[in-house]
C-alpha cells in the first residue's frame, strides 16, 4: 500500500514571496504519478501540477514547480511570486501506473497555505 505524508499542517507566506510545501511518500512501485491538488475555500479540488516518476525533469506550470527526488521519495511544491488567490489547502497525491482499471489517488493530509497581503 502507498502512503503520502505531509508533515506541515500549515504555512504562511508574504504576497510575492516564494514558499515550498513538503511531501514524502512511500511505495514499492516503480511506475507512478504524483500530483499536487489545490482546494480553495470553495472546496473544489483543482489540479496544480503533475509529475511522472519515470521523468527525471521536474515539472513546472507557470509559478508552480516541483522538486522530485525519486530516491528520497520526496515531492515538494514551490510556489513563486505568491498571490492572494493561492490561499488554499494543498494536497499531495500518489497514483500508481496500473495495468488494470485501477488508478485511484492516495492523498496526504494536506497543508493549509495562507498568503498574507
Amino acid at each position, binding site marked *: 500500500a502507498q502512503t503520502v505524508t505531509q508533515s506541515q499542517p500549515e504555512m504562511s507566506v508574504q504576497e510575492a514571496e516564494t514558499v515550498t510545501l513538503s511531501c514524502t511518500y512511500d511505495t514499492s512501485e516503480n511506475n507512478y*504519478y504524483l*500530483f499536487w*491538488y489545490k482546494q480553495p475555500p*470553495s*472546496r*473544489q*479540488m*483543482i*489540479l496544480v501540477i*503533475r509529475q511522472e516518476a519515470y521523468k527525471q525533469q521536474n515539472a513546472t506550470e507557470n509559478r508552480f514547480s516541483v522538486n522530485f527526488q525519486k530516491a528520497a521519495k520526496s515531492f515538494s511544491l514551490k510556489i513563486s511570486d505568491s498571490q492572494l488567490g493561492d490561499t488554499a489547502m494543498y*494536497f499531495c497525491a500518489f497514483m500508481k*501506473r*496500473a495495468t*488494470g*482499471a*485501477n*488508478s*485511484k*489517488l*492516495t*492523498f*496526504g*493530509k*494536506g497543508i493549509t497555505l495562507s498568503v498574507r497581503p
Partner: protein
Amino acid sequence: EPEVTQTPSHQVTQMGQEVILRCVPISNHLYFYWYRQILGQKVEFLVSFYNNEISEKSEIFDDQFSVERPDGSNFTLKIRSTKLEDSAMYFCASSLGQIYEAFFGQGTRLTVV
C-alpha cells in the same frame, strides 16, 4: 472547458434515510470515482468504476454504499441508510484513462442529523 458537475451542493438528511448523490462526469471520460473528505481530514478514496462495473473499492465502501451509471451520463453514489459518521464532503471525479489525471467536481456536502 468541460467540467465535472455534482448535485446537490449541500444535502441534509436524517439518520437512517437513503441519499443519492449525483455526478455528471466529463463526457469522453471512461473512469469514474467517488472520494470523501470528512471535515478537517484528508480526502479518502471510496470507489472506482470502469466499463459499468466497480474496479476497486475501499474498506469504507461497505454494503451501505452503491454506485451506478444508469443512463450513460450520470454517475450516482447511493448511501442506503445514512449514519452520523457519513457526514462529509463527497467528491466525484473522472479521468480519460489510467494514466490521466482525475478531474474533480465541486463536491456535495452531506450532513446527517
